[in-house]
């Protein structure tokens, strides 16, 4: 009969059973050499989570690709296959696509997509769509396969490629918002791939073993897989912020040599205002709720946000000519802008006007305007007249007598692309106490020809000025003809109504200003006329649309009212033109800016009034003195579409997020980078934000110092404050919730292991080892406990909780410790005998604690802190 060797006798029962179990599982693994990672970890937490995370990644990748790019079908396809694959293949295991079938399907998908690809001659967004389709198809096929390590990796890479393609298509804030869950789930998935890779190859190496050498590490695998629960969170909460920091530094510090731009956005750019605007065009624009502009006003003198008392008019295009036409056999009309001539060609913005009398500054506010315009199909930009240039580098031009802005030529898009998003700045003196001025000087620049008679100017210069003056006078004459062109036969009602109004006033009052105001009031207030967005009015054959509006329908949108007023003014020989743009009152309180949407598109009228005809109280300060002024007239009843209030809080937050996203991500280019990173005292957004934050903190500190916290109640000596009380209760609840939340196991373990700091370590090594062995079970001696108290309590606790007695060796060790440490020298006994005794007892204790450890296979290796020279195998020596 074979008797166990000492080595076996100590460790054989537990070790052999464990080892044989491990080898059995290893052998099973050997027989399944071709099995997948999922099968190896059959039904394990790791396997389930990996499948879930990668299915989620597939879903999110498809959603990112589909959202905001007009490819919603692709998003639906990706989500469907991700869910279908997860449920039917990963979860229920109903089927799985074999590799050969998957490769065939991928090949077919590639052929299908490439055949579409080569149909396009020029590079455009459709080719990117084809690429997107290919990505989604291949990802769908991958989801139908049995998941292996390689499949997981491919799913991750395809999700990344989807993000890349989506980044080309979609630069809206929803991309950034979707990037958050993608990043979170992606970090989880990648961290679990670490677990899979580490634990998977333990089996893999065993498979490669020679037949005579078999190895297993069941506990190690359990230890590695036990990280499945907390590793994703650790990675997300500790490594994630670091990754974001590096990414932010990279993004903002990367030298940029090109302007920020965007590809594609086909079908997504706004219509904008071109040189021709059809009568029904604004009516159609108003149907849309899409965001077009964000306008931030800032008072230059106080560096504070500036709010307007009434609506804010943003002029986009000036339309001079009314041109009736026939469309589909029915009468229609187009307002056309006269192209710029040598006189009023596009120029840089005029410098800020400084009045000769300082007191004039009391009659206008100097406002800095920052406009962020969405991508549009036309180059025209939007302005608040009168405007002037600022210190910031400008890439916009102005038409001097139109007071309109446009992009520079180098901002023009290449063929096939829309005009990208742009943010620009200018200054304006158009406001006084929040009211936008209704007068604009005739020209935006000082007319140098006025000095043609100045004797101090050289004769050559005077001659040139005279020629310029002649040219301008000629231009004015021609332009006046255009602005007073009126077909009395086509629109007789306009003249009739205007004449009636003109004749109603007393002769002394019948100036152009008075008449213009009366005509505006007529259209605006007369009950016969009404505002409607209904565009289904049937055009009357042979009748001019304006005439039909004035004489028959008397209902229409702002463009009809403005057109009618222009006709009425022109019938009275008052030069007038149509202005189209946005009129908004929607203010984002959170972001501190005005929002102009398509529904805020508006048309109004400008009448040219001589300076002498202006009323005495007309405020024309802050702009170049002029002989003539443009008078803004808005004849639309009820203010047009601006009556709609601003969006709710959620919408405002979303708008703000979009704004920040565009400011700091999408539109980041060299100049903005310089502004954001290098400038410290300028108007750059980032330094502005920092300054605002610091100011807020300073304000808060000063308020605290002044005792104003709690709504000022503390300052007055009142000891109770409702806000402070609510804050206190809220904080208490928060603390309570935090305390109630169960701490993660690793934190608890850390706390547990740190606990025995107060108790001194025993001086005798064998008893120190004894305590350390007990520490493996989470039992630590407190500072107030004697060794005997501790060991007896520990043996009782182990017997009660683990159902295994360690009392005997523990008592022996404790006794030996007391005898050696505190006993008289003559009773300590033979050193060798005591040494042998304690070693045996310690070995016995360790063996029993090992048994307890084996009863908890999921306990991590990190906890099994054992001592050198005390392992099972060594004790035999």
């Amino acid at each position, binding site marked *: *009969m*074979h*008797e166990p*060797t000492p*080595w076996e006798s100590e*460790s054989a029962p537990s070790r*052999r059973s464990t080892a044989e179990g491990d*080898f059995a599982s290893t052998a099973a693994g050997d027989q399944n050499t071709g099995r997948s990672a999922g099968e190896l970890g059959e039904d394990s937490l790791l396997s389930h989570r990996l499948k879930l995370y990668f299915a989620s990644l597939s879903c999110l990748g498809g959603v990112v690709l589909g959202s905001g790019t007009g490819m919603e079908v692709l998003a639906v396809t990706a989500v469907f296959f991700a869910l279908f694959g997860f449920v039917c293949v990963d979860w229920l295991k109903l089927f799985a696509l074999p590799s050969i079938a998957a490769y065939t399907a991928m090949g077919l998908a590639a052929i299908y997509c490439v055949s579409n690809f080569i149909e396009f001659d020029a590079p455009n967004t459709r080719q990117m769509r084809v690429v997107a389709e290919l990505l989604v198809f291949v990802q769908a096929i991958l989801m139908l396969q049995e998941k292996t390590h390689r499949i997981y990796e491919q799913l991750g*890479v395809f999700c990344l490629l989807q*993000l890349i393609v989506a*980044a*080309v298509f979609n630069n809206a804030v929803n*991309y950034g918002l979707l*990037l958050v869950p993608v990043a979170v789930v992606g*970090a989880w998935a*990648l*961290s679990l*791939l*670490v677990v899979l*890779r*580490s*634990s998977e190859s*333990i089996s893999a*190496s065993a498979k*490669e*073993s*020679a037949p*005579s*050498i*078999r*190895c297993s*590490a069941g506990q*190690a695998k359990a230890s590695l897989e036990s*990280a499945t629960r907390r*590793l994703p969170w650790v*990675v997300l909460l500790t*490594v994630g912020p*670091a*990754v974001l*920091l*590096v*990414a*932010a530094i*990279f*993004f903002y510090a*990367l030298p940029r040599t*090109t302007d920020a731009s*965007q590809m594609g956005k086909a079908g997504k750019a706004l219509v904008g205002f071109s040189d021709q605007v059809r009568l029904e065009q604004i009516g159609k624009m108003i149907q849309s709720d899409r965001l077009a502009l964000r306008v931030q006003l800032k008072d230059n003198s106080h560096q504070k946000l500036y709010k307007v008392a009434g609506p804010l008019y943003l002029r986009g295009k000036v339309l001079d000519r009314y041109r009736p036409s026939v469309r589909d056999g029915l009468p229609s009309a187009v307002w056309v802008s006269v192209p710029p001539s040598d006189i009023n060609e596009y120029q840089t913005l005029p410098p800020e006007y400084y009045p000769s009398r300082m007191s004039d500054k009391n009659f206008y506010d100097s406002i800095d305007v920052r406009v962020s315009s969405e991508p549009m199909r036309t180059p025209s930009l939007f302005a608040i007249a009168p405007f002037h240039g600022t210190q910031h580098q400008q890439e916009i031009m102005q038409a001097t007598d139109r007071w309109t802005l446009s992009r520079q030529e180098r901002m023009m898009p290449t063929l096939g692309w829309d005009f990208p998003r742009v943010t620009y700045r200018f200054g304006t003196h158009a406001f006084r106490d929040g009211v936008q001025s209704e007068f604009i000087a005739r020209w935006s620049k000082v007319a140098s020809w006025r000095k043609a008679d100045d004797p101090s100017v050289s004769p050559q210069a005077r001659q040139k000025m005279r020629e310029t003056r002649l040219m301008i006078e000629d231009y004015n004459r021609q332009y006046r003809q255009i602005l007073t062109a009126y077909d009395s036969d086509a629109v007789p009602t306009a003249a009739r109504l205007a004449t009636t109004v003109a004749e109603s006033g007393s002769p002394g009052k019948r100036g152009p200003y008075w008449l213009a105001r009366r005509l505006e009031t007529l259209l605006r207030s007369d009950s016969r006329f009404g505002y409607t967005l209904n565009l289904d009015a049937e055009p009357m054959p042979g009748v001019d649309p304006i005439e039909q509006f004035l004489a028959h329908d008397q209902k229409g949108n702002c463009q009809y009212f403005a057109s009618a007023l222009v006709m009425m003014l022109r019938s009275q020989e008052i030069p007038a033109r149509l202005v189209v743009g946005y009129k908004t009152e929607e203010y984002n309180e959170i972001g501190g800016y005005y929002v102009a949407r398509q529904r805020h598109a508006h048309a109004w009228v400008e009448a040219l009034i001589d300076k002498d005809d202006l009323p005495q109280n007309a405020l024309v300060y802050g702009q170049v003195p002029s002989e003539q002024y443009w008078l803004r007239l808005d004849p639309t009843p009820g203010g047009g579409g601006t009556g709609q209030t601003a969006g709710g809080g959620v919408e405002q937050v979303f708008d703000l997020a979009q704004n920040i996203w565009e400011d700091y991500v*999408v539109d*980041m280019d060299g100049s903005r980078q310089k502004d954001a990173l290098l400038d410290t005292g300028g108007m750059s957004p980032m330094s502005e934000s920092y300054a605002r934050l610091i100011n807020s903190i300073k304000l808060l500190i000063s308020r605290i110092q002044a005792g104003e916290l709690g709504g000022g109640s503390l300052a007055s000596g009142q000891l109770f404050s409702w806000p402070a009380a609510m804050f206190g209760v809220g904080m208490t609840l928060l603390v309570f919730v935090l305390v109630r939340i169960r701490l993660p196991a*690793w934190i608890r373990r850390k706390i547990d292991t740190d606990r025995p700091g107060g108790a001194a370590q025993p001086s005798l090594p064998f008893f120190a080892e004894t305590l350390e062995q007990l520490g493996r079970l989470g039992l630590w001696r407190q500072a107030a406990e004697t060794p005997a108290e501790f060991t007896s309590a520990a043996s009782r606790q182990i017997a009660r909780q683990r159902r295994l007695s360690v009392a005997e060796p523990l008592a022996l060790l404790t006794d030996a410790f007391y005898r050696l440490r505190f006993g008289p020298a003559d009773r300590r006994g033979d050193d060798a005998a005591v040494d042998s005794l304690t070693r045996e007892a310690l070995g016995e204790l360790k063996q029993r604690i090992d048994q307890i450890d084996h009863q908890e296979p999921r306990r*991590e*290796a*990190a906890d099994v*802190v054992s001592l*050198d020279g005390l392992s099972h*195998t*060594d004790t*035999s*020596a």
Partner: protein
Amino acid sequence: MTTSARDEPRVRHRLTRLGLHFAFVGGFAMLGGALRGLNLLLVLAGMMVGLLFMQWRLCRRSIESVSLRRRVPNEAFAGRPFRVRFRVTNHSRSMPAWMLRIDDPIGSMQRSDRSTASTGIGFLAAKRTATPSYDCVITRRGRYRLGPSTGWTTFPFALAMTRKTNDDQESLDVYPELLDLKRGWQRHLLGRTEGATAAAHRSGANDGEFFALREWQSGDNLRWIHWRTTARKDEPMVRQFEQHRRFDLCLLVDGYLPNDAPDELAEEPAELAISLAATLLTRLVASPANRLTLAVAAQRPQAVSGGSAAGKRHMLGLLSEMKTCCEPNLAEAIEKVSLLFGRAQDLVVLSPRSLEAAGVGRDDELSAALHPWKRGGRLCWINVTDPSVERWISLAGKPAAVGAE
């Protein structure tokens, strides 16, 4: 077990397959973003850079702050699991180590058998030590080389792997497989050595160590009656004693391998003889009263003696490294034993062949060498291919060994 000199560990860093994909896609995004001014591509490129940078940093830091030390068992027997432990210490002040894997190559120094054992730790807190281990079963005796061990991790994103290879090669003697000896093996050992009484001395005048109680049988000495139990059970019960015998033996292992050995199957009888020798040796050395000498007749005949733990290891090591051959020189081995330790001990020959097949009678030298023991009846020749060997051991699972002759 011997250990080679330790040098500084080598740390290597490389991207994984997934990391290469990420780097490629990140590079594409960076290029596209920079050339076309597409900021979102640069955002993605930045995230890729962040991922790869943090991967590199944490991966490298984790491995660099961790030290590995292998602890191999003092003895390992073929066919029996043994555990190899690693002492892994995280020297970092604050950073824990995650998902640490250890690969440890194991290879035979005589044959081409190779494998890689692996173990790992999911989490190791800063300033902590853990002892991960792996279990190993080696079915063939011999000397094996362990190492160099490699610690690696792909924490936190599996995009790169940092490996630290320690120069910690160690050799491990895997002793022959231990067999299950049948009951009464000591009696057989005594019986077969015809002069057993001379070899197995009573260890003293007493009756031996108390072993158990049994019913009284005719012939039992009255002194052995256990009166208290007899009173309780109301029938005579006697004490059984385990007799302490002192064996003074020389085990001679015949490392004979047939010349035309086609495969490993032919090695089985010799291996069985070696295993039986190791088993007897292990059991006999356990009692300090016994005196044992081991001689091997193999490619290089050797003889050693010893009763201590070190001597036992020495003898087992000799068996583990013993190389069988077609013409083992039994006579020379016996001669060595005689020269070194005399001829007082009984001789037990463990052979894969019979006495006659070994050439006794034909080979004058061998006959002469064995003559003193034969003459004294102190020779025990155990032919492991003979069915009678089942009196010693259970041959279940070893059919090839028996009847090979």
